[in-house]
């Protein structure tokens, strides 16, 4: 149990997708103008990450690595299909995003309307693909760990976009030098927030 909690906290704060790896920056910057859209996008990312990371873990473990195909028959054990990982991962992600889009359209047309073109963008949100690609680098050894990792990274991303959206709503009333307005100041604030998040480094439960 402890290791899951550890992984969860680590993926939210210490290895935050946005502040430590800059993943998903494009949608992070584009959709953080209002808090409402930020929350919607964040929730969608949590969902997609929680679903796709364990699926991609299974694909990686049972289809792609050498020896992974042994369950079909011993003669397949030699196959090394790792070069296919990008295409497989992205296919899973694209279909999951399609699913989320259909679910949101059905149950919350208002949210669908406001998220608009940003939903398909989740497919090209680096945070999602990054989550799956990080599986190879981080020591993740079973499906439940992969699920916890996916969920935790999603929560971390959610936290980041909600925080920046709230700050941007407030900052609209501030007197910022004209060339820095909009994008420039958002970058600098994100940088400062990232410095803040660095203080979580080294925390271990």
């Amino acid at each position: 149990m402890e290791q899951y909690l550890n992984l969860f906290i680590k993926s939210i704060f210490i290895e935050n997708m946005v502040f430590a790896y800059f993943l998903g920056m494009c949608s992070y910057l584009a959709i953080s103008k209002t808090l409402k859209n930020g929350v919607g996008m964040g929730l969608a990312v949590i969902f997609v990450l929680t679903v796709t990371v364990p699926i991609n873990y299974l694909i990686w473990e049972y289809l792609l690595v050498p020896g992974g195909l042994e369950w079909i028959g011993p003669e397949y054990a030699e196959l090394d299909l790792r070069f296919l990982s990008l295409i497989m991962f992205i296919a899973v992600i694209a279909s999951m995003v399609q699913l989320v889009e259909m679910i949101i359209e059905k149950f919350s047309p208002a949210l669908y309307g406001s998220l608009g073109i940003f939903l398909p963008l989740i497919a090209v949100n680096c945070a999602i693909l990054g989550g799956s690609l990080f599986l190879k680098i981080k020591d993740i050894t079973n499906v439940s760990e992969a699920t916890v990792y996916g969920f935790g990274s999603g929560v971390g991303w959610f936290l980041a976009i909600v925080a920046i959206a709230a700050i941007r709503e407030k900052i609209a009333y501030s007197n910022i030098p004209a060339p820095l307005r909009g994008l420039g100041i958002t970058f600098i604030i994100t940088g400062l927030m990232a410095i803040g998040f660095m203080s979580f480094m080294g925390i271990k439960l």
Partner: protein
Amino acid sequence: MSEKNKNKSSFFFISKNSEPIFSKKNRQLLTDPLDDNNPITVQVLGICSALAITVQLKPAIVMTMSVIFVMASSNVIISLLRNLIPNRIRIIVFLVVISSLVALVDEVLRAYAYDVSKELSIFIGLIVTNCIVMGRLEAFALGNGVWKSFLDGIGNAFGYGFILILVAFFRELLGSGKLMGVQVIPDFIYEMGYEDNGLMLLSPMALITVGLIIWVQRSRNTKLIEEN
């Protein structure tokens, strides 16, 4: 390129546009993304990788070259296929084309430049979801001829690489006193009490550096200023 392909591609751009190959408009496709329409600072595309790999100059340059290759080829491929792709599944087609090209780059780097490939870790793979590639395919290659799409791809990749290299230049110079791994700040300056700014090596400074670049660019080019 074989003779046959050459004929085919020249046939393509002669038939699509009768203007000269480097007409003013075509030149603009190349130069616009460097400043007025920069993918990173103006279109806000492809930021993720731009920030993560800019601690040193060398990975930034390798990344730029990979993106130039991927963008130019995917733009050309999609532009050739643009009348054949059904609108509904275009995203999937884009992803397949891009991810095959990226897988190619990844394998080549792993074979010939293993150190750099290790350093770039997942970020080469992340070119797939680099919004800049996707964004230009959607916004440009889908509606324009082969030659123009090629120029647009090269132009945008250069605009992207320009910022990448600029950020990496400052971060490596101020953070470790080196450029391309070679020490450039002479020893006597260190002896006088100068110290490298370790903060520049940490990830937050990448964001702040880009923020400052945007500041400089927009004070120079006032038509880019946002109304909040």
